[in-house]
């Protein structure tokens, strides 16, 4: 290798690292500003230059946000709604994913085909009929409306089916010969092995529904029923310009659970993204 190509390669490598570092700063900057500004006193929150490192952190905003709006209430609503959806979908999707992968019954491919077709249809294009059905069941303005209408998932079923398809059929056949029922075979053998897929689906659902804004906006009317994202947007409107640090304290509290979960379960977040790509 000649000296000039060596120098060229080194310049290329340094430029590459520089681009990555700048990109990472752009990715993290707004988040860092949000955290540090939530620790400034309300009076100086909007004053520039921003404080990138909180030398004198002021935690009063975090108590103020509980005083000004029912953020505790929003938090509970979000936990209940997200928790029920995560648990509910884990059950429905594990059951149906297993059946589509392992059990033969008449009409299986037709029903699965319909499931796949519904995956193509975005939520927003069917929101009006879903709202009408919610109303028909008397669930309008109830956090339960968010749960009930999210208990079935074609994508979740598909995800679980893909996972069960890879499992050896011989295990179940052996268990059946030994006298285990269909359901015992499913529960004792296959469901136990499905942990990683269940974790991926649960994490995907948690981060998706915890952050959800659109359905809560349409389904909920009274503030007491609001989930965190909807409540925060309301908070921003109520307070006006005076103390953005209080609003940002609320924002930080809302993001925190996802970040904590990400720290402990990073690989399932990544698996959730790549899961869809493997046809």
């Amino acid at each position, binding site marked *: 290798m000649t000296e000039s190509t060596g120098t060229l390669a080194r310049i*290329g490598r340094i430029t590459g690292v520089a681009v990555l570092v700048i990109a990472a700063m752009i990715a993290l900057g707004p988040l860092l500003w949000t955290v540090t500004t939530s620790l400034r006193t309300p009076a100086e929150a909007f004053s520039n230059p921003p404080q990138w490192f909180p030398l004198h952190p002021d935690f009063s905003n975090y108590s103020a946000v509980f005083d000004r709006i029912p953020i505790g209430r929003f938090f509970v609503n979000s936990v209940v709604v997200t928790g029920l959806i995560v648990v509910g979908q884990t059950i429905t999707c594990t059951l149906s994913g297993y059946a589509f992968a392992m059990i033969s019954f008449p009409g299986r491919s037709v029903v699965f085909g319909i499931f796949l077709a519904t995956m193509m249809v975005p939520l927003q294009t069917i929101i009006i009929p879903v709202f009408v059905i919610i109303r028909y069941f008397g669930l309008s303005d109830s956090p339960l409306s968010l749960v009930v209408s999210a208990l079935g998932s074609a994508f979740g079923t598909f995800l679980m089916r893909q996972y069960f398809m890879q499992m050896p059929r011989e295990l179940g056949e052996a268990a059946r010969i030994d006298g285990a029922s269909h359901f015992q075979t499913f529960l004792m053998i296959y469901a136990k092995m499905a942990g990683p897929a269940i974790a991926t689906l649960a994490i995907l659902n948690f981060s998706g529904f915890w952050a959800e804004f659109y359905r809560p906006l349409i389904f909920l009317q009274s503030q007491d029923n609001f989930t965190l994202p909807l409540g925060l947007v309301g908070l921003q409107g109520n307070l006006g310009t005076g103390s953005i640090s209080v609003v940002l304290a609320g924002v930080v509290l809302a993001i925190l659970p996802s970040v904590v979960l990400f720290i402990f379960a990073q690989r399932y977040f990544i698996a959730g993204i790549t899961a869809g790509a493997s046809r």
Partner: protein
Amino acid sequence: MSAVTAEVREAVVKKRRGHPSSHGEARFGFAMIGLSVLFVAVFTAIPIVASLGLSFFSWDVISTPEYVGLENYRRLFTDGPVLKSFGVTLGMALAIVVLQLTIGLGLAVLVNQRKLVWVRTLFRTAFYLPLLASTAAVSIFMGYLFDYKFGVVNYYLGLLGIPNVPWLTSGFGAAATIVLIAVWQQIGFTFVLFVASLMSVPTDVLEAAQIDGAGGLRTLFRIKIPLISPTILFAAVVALINAMQLFDQPYIMTKGGPGSATTTVTISMYQKGFQNLQFGYGSAIAIVLLAAILVITGLQFLAARKLVFYQ
């Protein structure tokens, strides 16, 4: 060999072929899919049909729906503001998808070149973090950062001698800023996808290219990108379907304004359907949006037949 083992073997063979070995198995299958079928039917499948059906009616939720034929569609195609929202959505969605794919791919290629695993993990975490925040949270703090008078962005530009930029207070500015914010938040999605698929490019192929004297850029465009093109197609389809439904950021940050510069299709649908209680007209907008998404996705797959390389 006893008759019993023969029978068992036959049952196993039957099952492998996918025939129901008994009524019991079929019944078990139905029971297992029951819950999913119920919920997917009531809250997805039926609403798809109902959305199409409702689009032929005039309905304010309270009184009896009135059949109006194609009137909602006729109205839509002469409704200037709604038509404009389709144009706004298309423009912003295309910009988002192009930026999200190119920047995501570029960063993935750069990270992929790093040899140290912890360095790769560090950058992956950095690019993924924005995805963890809700769009509502992002819209709130980005609104402050891009504030015309007090925003941090204009403050730093001011230090460089650049006068205040009307990020969210001018028509083009608001659309462009929302595009940038959406790309900022979504970049982790394409990035993670591309890193994963770049890792799967076989090293012997890359080594062969190196031995043949192919440089870094040549390897990238002639080998890596063709090999991961199925993933690029997938990312493009998913990103576009998402971007065509852009709602949260413009709704929260600009309420679709200034004027109607950031009024996307989903915002016009929300206004007509849920604010003006025109459920029939709202449904017609939803159906046309769905059709537009299906057509664009179809075009992507059509283009992919020429561009995507399947091993």
